[in-house]
Protein backbone atom coordinates (compact mmCIF):
# COMPACT_ATOMS: atom_id res chain seq x y z
CA UNK A 1 0.00 0.00 0.00
CA UNK A 2 1.47 3.36 -0.99
CA UNK A 3 0.10 5.88 1.46
CA UNK A 4 2.22 8.73 0.10
CA UNK A 5 -0.47 9.49 -2.45
CA UNK A 6 -2.75 10.70 0.35
CA UNK A 7 -0.27 13.35 1.46
CA UNK A 8 -0.15 16.41 -0.81
CA UNK A 9 3.24 17.48 0.50
CA UNK A 10 4.82 14.53 -1.33
CA UNK A 11 3.42 15.81 -4.62
CA UNK A 12 4.87 19.22 -3.90
CA UNK A 13 8.21 17.99 -2.57
CA UNK A 14 8.84 14.98 -4.75
CA UNK A 15 12.23 13.88 -3.43
CA UNK A 16 11.68 14.53 0.23
CA UNK A 17 12.53 11.72 2.62
CA UNK A 18 10.62 12.69 5.75
CA UNK A 19 12.00 11.02 8.88
CA UNK A 20 10.78 13.48 11.50
CA UNK A 21 7.27 12.24 12.20
CA UNK A 22 7.99 12.13 15.93
CA UNK A 23 8.20 15.94 15.83
CA UNK A 24 5.11 16.26 13.65
CA UNK A 25 3.55 13.85 11.23
CA UNK A 26 2.60 14.85 7.72
CA UNK A 27 -1.07 15.57 7.07
CA UNK A 28 -3.32 13.82 4.53
CA UNK A 29 -5.51 15.79 2.13
CA UNK A 30 -8.62 14.58 3.98
CA UNK A 31 -7.65 16.63 6.98
CA UNK A 32 -7.16 19.95 5.25
CA UNK A 33 -10.30 19.24 3.25
CA UNK A 34 -12.28 18.84 6.46
CA UNK A 35 -10.81 22.10 7.76
CA UNK A 36 -11.70 23.89 4.53
CA UNK A 37 -15.20 22.44 4.78
CA UNK A 38 -15.69 24.20 8.05
CA UNK A 39 -14.56 27.50 6.56
CA UNK A 40 -16.63 27.11 3.39
CA UNK A 41 -19.88 25.78 4.84
CA UNK A 42 -20.02 26.96 8.45
CA UNK A 43 -17.44 29.62 9.21
CA UNK A 44 -19.29 30.82 12.33
CA UNK A 45 -19.30 30.02 16.01
CA UNK A 46 -20.64 26.93 17.78
CA UNK A 47 -22.54 26.36 21.03
CA UNK A 48 -23.79 29.88 21.25
CA UNK A 49 -25.94 30.37 18.17
CA UNK A 50 -29.31 28.91 17.33
CA UNK A 51 -29.15 29.28 13.56
CA UNK A 52 -28.27 26.44 11.18
CA UNK A 53 -24.55 27.04 10.55
CA UNK A 54 -24.06 27.21 14.27
CA UNK A 55 -25.96 24.17 15.47
CA UNK A 56 -24.89 22.05 12.53
CA UNK A 57 -21.25 22.82 13.31
CA UNK A 58 -21.91 22.14 17.00
CA UNK A 59 -23.29 18.72 16.13
CA UNK A 60 -20.19 17.91 14.08
CA UNK A 61 -17.89 18.99 16.89
CA UNK A 62 -19.73 16.75 19.34
CA UNK A 63 -19.62 13.86 16.85
CA UNK A 64 -15.84 14.24 16.66
CA UNK A 65 -15.69 14.18 20.43
CA UNK A 66 -17.59 10.88 20.40
CA UNK A 67 -15.29 9.53 17.72
CA UNK A 68 -12.23 10.38 19.82
CA UNK A 69 -13.87 8.84 22.88
CA UNK A 70 -14.37 5.63 20.94
CA UNK A 71 -10.82 5.82 19.59
CA UNK A 72 -9.33 5.74 23.11
CA UNK A 73 -12.19 3.88 24.82
CA UNK A 74 -13.33 6.77 26.98
CA UNK A 75 -16.71 8.33 27.38
CA UNK A 76 -17.59 11.52 25.58
CA UNK A 77 -17.54 13.79 28.59
CA UNK A 78 -14.02 12.65 29.47
CA UNK A 79 -12.59 14.09 26.23
CA UNK A 80 -11.43 17.68 26.63
CA UNK A 81 -10.16 19.64 23.66
CA UNK A 82 -6.93 21.53 24.31
CA UNK A 83 -4.37 23.49 22.33
CA UNK A 84 -2.09 20.46 22.27
CA UNK A 85 -0.38 17.88 24.42
CA UNK A 86 1.69 20.53 26.23
CA UNK A 87 -1.49 22.38 27.12
CA UNK A 88 -3.14 19.15 28.31
CA UNK A 89 -0.19 18.23 30.52
CA UNK A 90 -0.01 21.73 31.99
CA UNK A 91 -3.74 21.76 32.70
CA UNK A 92 -3.39 18.62 34.80
CA UNK A 93 -0.44 20.03 36.74
CA UNK A 94 -1.93 23.50 37.21
CA UNK A 95 -5.20 22.10 38.51
CA UNK A 96 -3.83 19.29 40.69
CA UNK A 97 -0.95 21.24 42.20
CA UNK A 98 -3.42 22.89 44.55
CA UNK A 99 -3.72 19.57 46.39
CA UNK A 100 0.04 19.19 46.87
CA UNK A 101 1.59 19.69 50.27
CA UNK A 102 5.16 20.08 51.44
CA UNK A 103 6.94 16.75 51.39
CA UNK A 104 4.55 15.12 48.93
CA UNK A 105 6.34 13.21 46.22
CA UNK A 106 6.00 13.37 42.46
CA UNK A 107 7.48 10.54 40.44
CA UNK A 108 8.78 11.15 36.95
CA UNK A 109 11.73 10.13 34.77
CA UNK A 110 14.72 11.55 32.98
CA UNK A 111 13.19 10.23 29.76
CA UNK A 112 10.39 12.78 29.84
CA UNK A 113 9.76 15.41 27.24
CA UNK A 114 10.05 18.87 28.82
CA UNK A 115 6.28 19.26 28.46
CA UNK A 116 5.69 16.30 30.74
CA UNK A 117 8.38 17.14 33.30
CA UNK A 118 8.56 20.95 33.63
CA UNK A 119 4.97 21.63 34.75
CA UNK A 120 5.61 19.37 37.73
CA UNK A 121 9.06 20.81 38.41
CA UNK A 122 7.38 24.20 38.76
CA UNK A 123 4.49 22.83 40.84
CA UNK A 124 6.91 21.05 43.15
CA UNK A 125 8.96 24.21 43.72
CA UNK A 126 5.83 26.16 44.49
CA UNK A 127 4.37 23.64 46.90
CA UNK A 128 7.53 22.23 48.44
CA UNK A 129 6.90 18.80 46.95
CA UNK A 130 9.79 16.53 46.04
CA UNK A 131 10.50 15.12 42.58
CA UNK A 132 11.71 11.53 42.43
CA UNK A 133 13.19 10.06 39.28
CA UNK A 134 12.69 6.40 38.43
CA UNK A 135 16.22 5.05 38.03
CA UNK A 136 16.69 4.06 34.40
CA UNK A 137 18.24 0.75 33.47
CA UNK A 138 21.58 0.71 31.72
CA UNK A 139 19.82 0.87 28.37
CA UNK A 140 17.73 3.82 29.54
CA UNK A 141 14.54 1.92 30.16
CA UNK A 142 11.86 2.27 32.81
CA UNK A 143 11.06 -0.97 34.61
CA UNK A 144 8.37 -1.84 37.10
CA UNK A 145 11.04 -2.96 39.55
CA UNK A 146 12.79 0.37 39.42
CA UNK A 147 9.47 2.16 39.73
CA UNK A 148 8.85 0.30 42.98
CA UNK A 149 12.10 1.71 44.33
CA UNK A 150 10.73 5.25 44.28
CA UNK A 151 7.02 4.61 44.89
CA UNK A 152 6.11 5.38 48.49
CA UNK A 153 3.22 6.40 50.71
CA UNK A 154 4.19 9.98 49.98
CA UNK A 155 3.73 9.57 46.23
CA UNK A 156 0.88 11.78 45.10
CA UNK A 157 1.54 12.13 41.38
CA UNK A 158 3.18 10.00 38.71
CA UNK A 159 3.95 11.94 35.51
CA UNK A 160 5.22 9.60 32.86
CA UNK A 161 5.36 9.20 29.10
CA UNK A 162 3.85 6.17 27.43
CA UNK A 163 6.58 6.20 24.78
CA UNK A 164 9.77 8.26 25.01
CA UNK A 165 10.26 10.73 22.18
CA UNK A 166 13.99 10.04 21.91
CA UNK A 167 14.47 6.44 22.92
CA UNK A 168 11.12 5.23 21.66
CA UNK A 169 10.79 2.83 24.58
CA UNK A 170 7.37 1.66 25.64
CA UNK A 171 6.84 2.32 29.36
CA UNK A 172 5.02 -0.42 31.33
CA UNK A 173 2.36 2.15 32.23
CA UNK A 174 -0.41 -0.32 32.98
CA UNK A 175 1.59 -1.95 35.79
CA UNK A 176 2.85 1.41 37.02
CA UNK A 177 -0.70 2.75 37.15
CA UNK A 178 -1.95 -0.27 39.09
CA UNK A 179 0.83 0.08 41.66
CA UNK A 180 0.31 3.84 41.91
CA UNK A 181 -3.38 3.44 42.58
CA UNK A 182 -2.65 1.16 45.52
CA UNK A 183 -0.82 4.12 47.05
CA UNK A 184 -3.62 6.49 46.09
CA UNK A 185 -1.40 8.35 43.61
CA UNK A 186 -2.73 9.92 40.43
CA UNK A 187 -1.06 9.06 37.13
CA UNK A 188 -0.82 11.51 34.23
CA UNK A 189 0.34 9.76 31.07
CA UNK A 190 2.01 11.70 28.26
CA UNK A 191 0.76 9.86 25.19
CA UNK A 192 2.17 12.22 22.54
CA UNK A 193 4.36 9.52 21.00
CA UNK A 194 2.09 6.56 21.74
CA UNK A 195 -1.28 7.68 20.39
CA UNK A 196 -0.04 7.96 16.77
CA UNK A 197 1.38 4.44 16.77
CA UNK A 198 -0.78 2.09 18.81
CA UNK A 199 -4.33 1.50 19.94
CA UNK A 200 -4.84 3.38 23.18
CA UNK A 201 -7.35 2.03 25.66
CA UNK A 202 -7.50 4.38 28.62
CA UNK A 203 -9.89 2.10 30.48
CA UNK A 204 -7.62 -0.90 30.10
CA UNK A 205 -4.60 1.15 31.21
CA UNK A 206 -6.77 2.62 33.98
CA UNK A 207 -4.98 5.94 33.34
CA UNK A 208 -6.18 8.90 35.35
CA UNK A 209 -5.12 11.37 32.67
CA UNK A 210 -3.92 10.79 29.13
CA UNK A 211 -2.68 13.58 26.85
CA UNK A 212 -1.86 13.80 23.17
CA UNK A 213 -1.59 16.15 20.16
CA UNK A 214 -3.26 15.72 16.79
CA UNK A 215 -0.42 17.16 14.73
CA UNK A 216 1.62 14.05 15.47
CA UNK A 217 -1.13 11.73 14.25
CA UNK A 218 -2.04 13.02 10.79
CA UNK A 219 -4.26 15.69 12.30
CA UNK A 220 -4.38 19.47 12.46
CA UNK A 221 -2.01 21.76 14.30
CA UNK A 222 -3.37 23.65 17.30
CA UNK A 223 -5.41 20.81 18.81
CA UNK A 224 -4.87 18.23 21.49
CA UNK A 225 -6.85 16.09 23.86
CA UNK A 226 -6.85 15.77 27.58
CA UNK A 227 -8.55 12.59 28.68
CA UNK A 228 -9.40 12.52 32.36
CA UNK A 229 -11.43 10.16 34.49
CA UNK A 230 -14.91 11.51 35.06
CA UNK A 231 -14.69 11.48 38.86
CA UNK A 232 -11.36 13.28 38.84
CA UNK A 233 -12.42 15.89 36.32
CA UNK A 234 -15.60 16.49 38.30
CA UNK A 235 -13.63 17.13 41.45
CA UNK A 236 -11.06 19.43 39.86
CA UNK A 237 -10.97 23.18 39.45
CA UNK A 238 -10.70 24.45 35.88
CA UNK A 239 -7.52 26.39 35.08
CA UNK A 240 -8.86 28.82 32.52
CA UNK A 241 -12.13 30.66 33.13
CA UNK A 242 -14.26 32.49 30.63
CA UNK A 243 -17.02 32.19 28.13
CA UNK A 244 -19.04 28.99 27.71
CA UNK A 245 -17.59 27.06 30.64
CA UNK A 246 -19.87 28.42 33.34
CA UNK A 247 -23.45 27.92 34.43
CA UNK A 248 -24.18 31.05 36.36
CA UNK A 249 -22.12 34.17 36.85
CA UNK A 250 -22.76 37.01 39.22
CA UNK A 251 -20.55 39.82 40.42
CA UNK A 252 -19.12 37.67 43.16
CA UNK A 253 -19.70 34.07 42.20
CA UNK A 254 -19.48 31.57 39.40
CA UNK A 255 -20.68 27.99 39.01
CA UNK A 256 -19.26 25.77 36.32
CA UNK A 257 -20.83 23.67 33.61
CA UNK A 258 -20.47 19.93 33.67
CA UNK A 259 -17.43 18.23 32.17
CA UNK A 260 -16.01 18.42 29.57
CA UNK A 261 -17.20 22.00 29.08
CA UNK A 262 -15.92 23.13 32.45
CA UNK A 263 -12.42 22.81 31.00
CA UNK A 264 -13.16 24.41 27.63
CA UNK A 265 -13.19 28.15 28.22
CA UNK A 266 -13.70 30.45 25.27
CA UNK A 267 -14.32 29.80 21.61
CA UNK A 268 -13.18 26.32 20.61
CA UNK A 269 -10.72 25.51 17.80
CA UNK A 270 -13.64 24.54 15.58
CA UNK A 271 -11.91 24.07 12.23
CA UNK A 272 -9.24 22.03 13.98
CA UNK A 273 -11.85 19.75 15.52
CA UNK A 274 -13.31 19.17 12.06
CA UNK A 275 -9.79 18.24 10.95
CA UNK A 276 -9.31 15.91 13.92
CA UNK A 277 -12.43 13.99 12.92
CA UNK A 278 -10.93 13.37 9.50
CA UNK A 279 -7.61 12.33 11.05
CA UNK A 280 -9.29 9.75 13.28
CA UNK A 281 -11.24 8.37 10.31
CA UNK A 282 -8.04 8.17 8.32
CA UNK A 283 -6.08 6.38 11.07
CA UNK A 284 -8.97 3.97 11.57
CA UNK A 285 -8.92 3.17 7.87
CA UNK A 286 -5.17 2.60 7.86
CA UNK A 287 -5.50 0.59 11.06
CA UNK A 288 -3.07 0.21 13.93
CA UNK A 289 -2.29 -3.33 12.84
CA UNK A 290 -0.77 -1.97 9.66
CA UNK A 291 0.86 1.00 11.41
CA UNK A 292 2.61 -1.16 14.00
CA UNK A 293 3.75 -3.62 11.36
CA UNK A 294 5.23 -0.90 9.17
CA UNK A 295 6.84 0.89 12.13
CA UNK A 296 8.70 -2.30 12.97
CA UNK A 297 9.62 -3.22 9.41
CA UNK A 298 10.94 0.21 8.53
CA UNK A 299 12.86 0.96 11.69
CA UNK A 300 14.10 -2.62 11.86
CA UNK A 301 15.43 -2.37 8.33
CA UNK A 302 17.03 1.00 9.02
CA UNK A 303 18.63 -0.20 12.23
CA UNK A 304 20.02 -3.28 10.56
CA UNK A 305 21.65 -1.20 7.86
CA UNK A 306 22.87 1.46 10.29
CA UNK A 307 24.50 -1.14 12.49
CA UNK A 308 26.69 -2.23 9.62
CA UNK A 309 28.24 1.25 9.45
CA UNK A 310 31.13 1.45 11.95
CA UNK A 311 30.97 5.25 12.27
CA UNK A 312 27.42 5.10 13.64
CA UNK A 313 26.46 4.88 17.31
CA UNK A 314 22.87 4.00 18.15
CA UNK A 315 21.50 4.97 21.58
CA UNK A 316 18.30 2.93 21.66
CA UNK A 317 18.48 -0.73 20.85
CA UNK A 318 14.78 -1.37 21.00
CA UNK A 319 13.54 -3.03 17.84
CA UNK A 320 9.84 -2.17 18.17
CA UNK A 321 10.35 1.54 18.26
CA UNK A 322 9.67 3.70 15.21
CA UNK A 323 12.39 6.04 16.50
CA UNK A 324 16.16 5.74 16.11
CA UNK A 325 18.40 7.95 18.24
CA UNK A 326 21.96 7.97 16.93
CA UNK A 327 25.02 9.97 15.97
CA UNK A 328 27.83 9.79 13.48
CA UNK A 329 30.73 9.36 15.90
CA UNK A 330 32.82 12.50 16.05
CA UNK A 331 30.39 14.61 14.04
CA UNK A 332 28.19 17.07 15.88
CA UNK A 333 24.56 16.29 15.11
CA UNK A 334 23.96 19.79 13.86
CA UNK A 335 26.68 19.45 11.24
CA UNK A 336 25.38 16.05 10.23
CA UNK A 337 21.77 17.13 9.93
CA UNK A 338 22.68 19.92 7.52
CA UNK A 339 24.22 17.36 5.24
CA UNK A 340 21.08 15.23 5.40
CA UNK A 341 18.96 18.28 4.73
CA UNK A 342 21.02 19.25 1.68
CA UNK A 343 20.31 15.76 0.41
CA UNK A 344 16.60 16.00 1.07
CA UNK A 345 16.52 13.75 4.09
CA UNK A 346 14.63 15.36 6.97
CA UNK A 347 15.96 14.33 10.37
CA UNK A 348 16.05 16.11 13.63
CA UNK A 349 19.18 17.09 15.55
CA UNK A 350 19.65 18.45 19.02
CA UNK A 351 18.06 17.76 22.35
CA UNK A 352 14.53 16.99 21.17
CA UNK A 353 13.05 18.76 24.19
CA UNK A 354 14.60 16.08 26.39
CA UNK A 355 17.68 17.68 27.87
CA UNK A 356 17.78 15.61 31.09
CA UNK A 357 17.90 12.47 28.96
CA UNK A 358 20.88 13.79 27.01
CA UNK A 359 22.64 14.53 30.27
CA UNK A 360 21.89 10.98 31.33
CA UNK A 361 23.28 9.67 28.02
CA UNK A 362 26.22 11.98 28.58
CA UNK A 363 26.06 13.43 25.10
CA UNK A 364 25.49 17.01 24.00
CA UNK A 365 23.04 16.27 21.21
CA UNK A 366 21.79 13.49 18.97
CA UNK A 367 20.24 12.76 15.60
CA UNK A 368 16.77 11.29 15.48
CA UNK A 369 15.13 9.43 12.64
CA UNK A 370 11.49 8.57 13.14
CA UNK A 371 9.23 6.54 10.90
CA UNK A 372 5.53 6.40 10.20
CA UNK A 373 3.38 4.23 7.95
CA UNK A 374 3.72 6.54 4.93
CA UNK A 375 7.46 5.92 4.81
CA UNK A 376 8.74 3.09 2.68
CA UNK A 377 11.82 0.97 2.10
CA UNK A 378 13.20 3.40 -0.45
CA UNK A 379 13.13 6.13 2.22
CA UNK A 380 15.25 3.88 4.42
CA UNK A 381 17.66 3.18 1.60
CA UNK A 382 18.03 6.85 0.71
CA UNK A 383 18.62 7.59 4.40
CA UNK A 384 21.40 5.00 4.57
CA UNK A 385 22.87 6.15 1.28
CA UNK A 386 23.06 9.73 2.53
CA UNK A 387 24.50 8.58 5.85
CA UNK A 388 27.38 6.93 4.01
CA UNK A 389 27.79 9.93 1.75
CA UNK A 390 27.91 12.20 4.82
CA UNK A 391 30.63 10.12 6.39
CA UNK A 392 32.65 10.26 3.17
CA UNK A 393 32.12 14.03 2.93
CA UNK A 394 33.14 14.75 6.49
CA UNK A 395 36.24 12.60 5.98
CA UNK A 396 37.10 14.49 2.82
CA UNK A 397 36.89 17.91 4.46
CA UNK A 398 38.97 16.68 7.37
CA UNK A 399 36.17 16.72 9.99
CA UNK A 400 36.44 12.97 10.45
CA UNK A 401 39.73 11.12 10.50
Amino acid at each position, binding site marked *: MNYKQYFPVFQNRKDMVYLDSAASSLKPKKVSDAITDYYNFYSGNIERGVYPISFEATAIVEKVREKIALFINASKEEVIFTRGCTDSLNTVALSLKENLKKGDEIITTELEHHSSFLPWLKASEEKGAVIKFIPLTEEGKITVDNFKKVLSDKTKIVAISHVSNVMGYLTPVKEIIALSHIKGAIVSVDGAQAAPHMKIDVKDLDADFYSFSFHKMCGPTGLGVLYGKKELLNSMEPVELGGEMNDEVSKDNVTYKNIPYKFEAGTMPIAEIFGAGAAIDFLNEVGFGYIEKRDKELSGYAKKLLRSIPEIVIYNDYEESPIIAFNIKGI*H*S*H*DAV*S*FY*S*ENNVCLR*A*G*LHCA*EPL*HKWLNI*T*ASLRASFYFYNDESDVEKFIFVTKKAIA*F*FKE*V*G*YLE
Partner: protein
Amino acid sequence: MSDMNSIYRQVIMDHYKNPRNKGLKEEEGYVLCHLKNPSCGDMINVESKIQNGLVSDIRQDGQGCSICCASASIISETLKGKSVKDALNIIDNYLKMVSNEEYDKSIDLDELAVFEGIKDFPARVRCASIAAQALRKTLEKEEKNA
Protein backbone atom coordinates in the same frame (compact mmCIF):
# COMPACT_ATOMS: atom_id res chain seq x y z
CA MET B 1 27.53 19.23 -2.93
CA SER B 2 29.11 22.54 -3.84
CA ASP B 3 26.99 24.14 -1.16
CA MET B 4 28.15 21.97 1.66
CA ASN B 5 31.71 22.46 0.44
CA SER B 6 31.21 26.18 0.66
CA ILE B 7 30.74 26.01 4.38
CA TYR B 8 32.89 23.10 5.44
CA ARG B 9 36.07 24.76 4.20
CA GLN B 10 39.58 24.04 5.32
CA VAL B 11 39.91 27.19 7.43
CA ILE B 12 36.76 26.31 9.34
CA MET B 13 37.82 22.72 9.90
CA ASP B 14 41.25 23.93 11.01
CA HIS B 15 39.78 26.29 13.60
CA TYR B 16 37.35 23.61 14.74
CA LYS B 17 40.12 21.08 15.21
CA ASN B 18 42.67 23.56 16.58
CA PRO B 19 40.68 26.26 18.33
CA ARG B 20 42.57 29.50 19.02
CA ASN B 21 42.32 31.38 22.32
CA LYS B 22 40.54 28.45 23.90
CA GLY B 23 39.94 28.36 27.63
CA LEU B 24 38.72 31.11 29.92
CA LYS B 25 41.04 33.28 32.01
CA GLU B 26 38.51 34.16 34.71
CA GLU B 27 40.84 36.95 35.79
CA GLU B 28 40.19 40.54 36.72
CA GLY B 29 39.53 42.71 33.72
CA TYR B 30 37.93 39.91 31.74
CA VAL B 31 34.20 40.09 31.10
CA LEU B 32 32.33 36.90 30.30
CA CYS B 33 29.26 36.36 28.17
CA HIS B 34 27.51 32.99 27.97
CA LEU B 35 25.05 32.23 25.16
CA LYS B 36 23.09 29.13 24.25
CA ASN B 37 21.25 27.73 21.29
CA PRO B 38 18.78 25.64 23.22
CA SER B 39 17.31 23.49 20.49
CA CYS B 40 20.64 22.09 19.32
CA GLY B 41 22.62 22.24 22.52
CA ASP B 42 25.28 24.73 21.33
CA MET B 43 26.76 26.69 24.19
CA ILE B 44 29.45 29.34 23.96
CA ASN B 45 31.41 31.44 26.44
CA VAL B 46 33.29 34.47 25.20
CA GLU B 47 35.56 36.42 27.51
CA SER B 48 37.03 39.75 26.55
CA LYS B 49 39.38 42.26 28.07
CA ILE B 50 39.31 45.90 27.13
CA GLN B 51 42.13 48.32 27.70
CA ASN B 52 42.23 51.92 26.52
CA GLY B 53 39.44 51.37 24.03
CA LEU B 54 41.14 48.33 22.54
CA VAL B 55 40.03 44.72 22.73
CA SER B 56 43.29 43.53 24.16
CA ASP B 57 42.31 39.89 24.63
CA ILE B 58 39.53 37.47 23.72
CA ARG B 59 39.13 33.98 25.14
CA GLN B 60 36.53 31.44 24.18
CA ASP B 61 35.17 28.13 25.27
CA GLY B 62 32.05 26.00 24.90
CA GLN B 63 30.62 23.19 22.93
CA GLY B 64 28.72 22.91 19.73
CA CYS B 65 28.88 22.10 16.09
CA SER B 66 31.89 22.84 13.93
CA ILE B 67 30.44 26.10 12.60
CA CYS B 68 29.72 27.38 16.08
CA CYS B 69 33.12 26.44 17.53
CA ALA B 70 35.10 27.57 14.49
CA SER B 71 33.35 30.91 14.43
CA ALA B 72 34.22 31.49 18.09
CA SER B 73 37.84 30.72 17.33
CA ILE B 74 37.99 32.92 14.22
CA ILE B 75 36.16 35.77 15.97
CA SER B 76 38.71 35.70 18.76
CA GLU B 77 41.61 35.77 16.31
CA THR B 78 40.19 38.41 14.02
CA LEU B 79 39.05 40.92 16.61
CA LYS B 80 41.87 40.74 19.12
CA GLY B 81 43.77 44.01 19.10
CA LYS B 82 41.04 45.96 17.30
CA SER B 83 39.42 49.04 18.81
CA VAL B 84 36.02 48.42 20.43
CA LYS B 85 34.47 50.55 17.73
CA ASP B 86 36.07 48.68 14.86
CA ALA B 87 35.31 45.34 16.45
CA LEU B 88 31.64 46.23 16.80
CA ASN B 89 31.54 47.39 13.23
CA ILE B 90 33.07 44.14 11.99
CA ILE B 91 30.70 42.06 14.12
CA ASP B 92 27.77 44.02 12.80
CA ASN B 93 28.71 43.46 9.19
CA TYR B 94 29.65 39.86 9.81
CA LEU B 95 26.23 39.15 11.32
CA LYS B 96 24.57 40.83 8.36
CA MET B 97 26.63 38.81 5.93
CA VAL B 98 25.72 35.45 7.44
CA SER B 99 22.04 36.47 7.73
CA ASN B 100 22.01 37.34 4.03
CA GLU B 101 21.33 41.01 4.70
CA GLU B 102 22.96 43.99 3.00
CA TYR B 103 26.35 44.73 4.52
CA ASP B 104 29.24 47.06 3.95
CA LYS B 105 31.58 45.10 1.67
CA SER B 106 34.32 47.69 2.03
CA ILE B 107 34.99 46.53 5.56
CA ASP B 108 37.71 43.93 5.90
CA LEU B 109 36.22 40.91 7.64
CA ASP B 110 39.52 39.07 7.34
CA GLU B 111 39.16 35.33 8.01
CA LEU B 112 35.52 35.78 9.00
CA ALA B 113 34.82 36.01 5.26
CA VAL B 114 34.98 32.20 5.11
CA PHE B 115 31.49 32.16 6.61
CA GLU B 116 29.96 33.85 3.60
CA GLY B 117 28.42 30.57 2.41
CA ILE B 118 26.38 30.28 5.63
CA LYS B 119 23.81 32.67 4.16
CA ASP B 120 22.55 29.77 2.03
CA PHE B 121 21.97 27.63 5.13
CA PRO B 122 19.33 29.46 7.12
CA ALA B 123 19.26 26.76 9.76
CA ARG B 124 22.96 27.36 10.47
CA VAL B 125 22.95 31.14 10.70
CA ARG B 126 22.43 30.92 14.42
CA CYS B 127 25.46 28.58 14.77
CA ALA B 128 27.69 31.06 12.98
CA SER B 129 26.29 34.01 14.93
CA ILE B 130 26.25 32.97 18.53
CA ALA B 131 29.89 33.72 19.39
CA ALA B 132 29.74 37.08 17.63
CA GLN B 133 26.54 37.93 19.47
CA ALA B 134 28.10 37.02 22.81
CA LEU B 135 31.09 39.28 22.16
CA ARG B 136 28.87 42.10 20.92
CA LYS B 137 26.93 41.99 24.16
CA THR B 138 30.00 42.71 26.29
CA LEU B 139 31.51 45.21 23.89
CA GLU B 140 28.28 47.20 23.71
CA LYS B 141 28.08 47.34 27.47
CA GLU B 142 31.70 48.44 27.57
CA GLU B 143 31.07 51.18 25.01
CA LYS B 144 28.10 52.46 26.96
CA ASN B 145 30.06 52.58 30.22
CA ALA B 146 32.98 54.35 28.55
